């Protein structure tokens, strides 16, 4: 179904660390100043490989949607270069546009149009004849569980259905690069998981995906590479697992059966009592959890439950963003 399947092994790095095969997205020194003077992007560089599943993270107002807007021709850039599969936006805009499918952050379909027409019209704008557009629309609406709603006006869909409609619309012309700006905002857990499965499948079929999200769990689950943007600058770009590896400490919250009158002390772990039946333990990477349990056992502490104090990625994210703000990077 997806004609754009790439063999990942082809993407061998060349000597200068660059990659031989053309980038799905290549942004150089992109800046954007809005008409009233807001500087939303201050020179960002971004490279996304073909076939990647890429997360663009950043706090509210960081410039994620602005960057996406420029890449998708919805905003004029102030300066810089953008290439999509090698097509420069300045010189080959139409070829570049044809490669991209966008599901934006805000709903932007005609609320009074029937669902299926939103897909077939969008396909039409990409030059796909109506009969084929109708076939593709059916397939996508079925995959995204919207087929029952095909004749309903879009305004009558629930929020989560509207999000899925935007994803379906973004895929109707079979783009090589799918850009999703907060695709799972306001989507319930069950649907979110089925959306994840769907996106993984699309990615496996060779479609490069870039998504922004505020759910770090989502980035951790789906994405291979990640960039963190803060105040219009890229402050971090790396692999997701590399980022996770940098987490030295994890804090666990442990509830105990007995009141913790006397805190045990265990070699290599820092234990803090936070309530009568609760303590927090910092665990560094060198020490495993089994050592902790052995120690607690020996001290006669019976563990009732154990959980992470905070999502580790969230902690790291806060660190990176705060650091970049603090030092004015």
């Amino acid at each position, binding site marked *: 179904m997806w004609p754009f399947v790439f063999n990942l092994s082809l993407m061998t790095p060349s000597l200068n660390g660059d990659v031989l095969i053309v980038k799905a997205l290549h942004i150089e020194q992109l800046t954007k100043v809005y008409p009233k003077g807001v500087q939303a992007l201050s020179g960002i560089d971004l490279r996304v490989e073909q076939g990647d599943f890429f997360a663009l993270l950043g706090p509210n107002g960081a410039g994620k949607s602005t960057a996406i807007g420029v890449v998708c021709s919805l905003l004029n850039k102030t300066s810089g270069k953008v290439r999509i599969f090698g097509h420069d936006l300045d010189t080959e805009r139409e070829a570049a*546009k044809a490669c991209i499918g966008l599901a934006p952050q805000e709903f932007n*379909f005609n609320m009074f149009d029937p669902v299926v027409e939103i897909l077939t019209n969008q396909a039409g704008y*990409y030059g796909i004849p109506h009969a084929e557009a109708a076939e593709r629309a059916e397939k996508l609406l079925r995959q995204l569980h919207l087929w029952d709603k095909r004749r309903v006006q879009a305004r009558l869909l629930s929020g989560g259905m509207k999000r899925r409609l935007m994803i379906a619309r973004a895929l109707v012309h079979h783009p090589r690069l799918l850009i999703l700006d907060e695709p799972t905002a306001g989507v319930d857990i069950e649907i979110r998981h089925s959306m994840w499965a769907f996106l993984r499948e699309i990615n496996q079929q060779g479609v490069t995906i870039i998504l922004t999200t505020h759910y770090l769990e989502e980035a951790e689950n789906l994405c291979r590479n990640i960039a963190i943007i803060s105040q219009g600058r890229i402050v971090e770009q790396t692999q997701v697992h590399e980022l996770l590896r940098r987490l030295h400490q994890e804090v666990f919250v442990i509830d105990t059966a007995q009141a913790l009158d006397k805190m045990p002390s265990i070699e290599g772990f820092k234990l803090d009592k936070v309530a009568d039946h609760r303590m927090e333990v910092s665990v560094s990477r060198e020490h495993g959890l089994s050592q902790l349990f052995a120690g607690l056992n020996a001290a006669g502490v019976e563990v009732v439950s154990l959980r992470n104090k905070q999502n580790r990625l969230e902690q790291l994210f806060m660190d990176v963003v705060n650091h970049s703000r603090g030092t004015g990077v």
Partner: protein
Amino acid sequence: MTFKMTYWVAFRTIVMKEMLRFMRISAQTLLPPAITTVLYFIIFGELIGARIGDMAGFRYVDFIVPGLILMAVISNSYANVVASFYGSKFQHYVEEMLVAPLPNWVILLGFVSGGVARGVMVGIVVTLVALFFSDIQVHSYAVTLAVFVLTSILFSLAGFINAVYANSFDDISVIPTFVLTPLTYLGGVFYSITLLPEFWQNVSLANPVLYMVNAFRYGLLGVSDISLTLAFAIIIGFIALLSAYCMHLLNRGVGIKS
């Protein structure tokens, strides 16, 4: 080559969508002009017109037919494009077109064709109504049709410009109320400008609608206050000017891209 095909598909998509839009709300788009025309014919044609007598050698009711048809064409072409394009900005679905690989001229041509489609349909409805009340023989089908379509194109373009600059629903009714309606009423729909004192005749000549109404009247009745060549030159000149301006606005992204 394949690009040409895709442009054609995109153009068709826009036009079909535009036509579907006004057909779906035909109670607001096709019916009202029919009703107002009936009222005009009853009041100006039958009641008052009977006391006016002839104008330019025609019964008054016959004399006003061309102007009334063209008035409906003008306001409906304009209204269609201004409402539709402003709606696409307001609800942001203009972005569906902006992300797609279709050139701006296809977008413009699509919306203008939608406006022309509505203008032509309303024109036909009004003409059918007019046939009940009047007795006219078409003088020149070629001139009639040409003026009909060109006027519709011209005011579709004007509606498009209005929509580009509009930032609220008020903005899309200001121009029709304060500019378009006065221009059409003073454009010789209801009278021959030879009735006016010389000074006002000259002022009237600055009104582009006058040229269209007169050219159209020539097409239907064979009489005009204005030379036909001049009328066509002015209509086509305005179309060229407004098209260029629309393209300039679209290329710069005025009102649609920050």
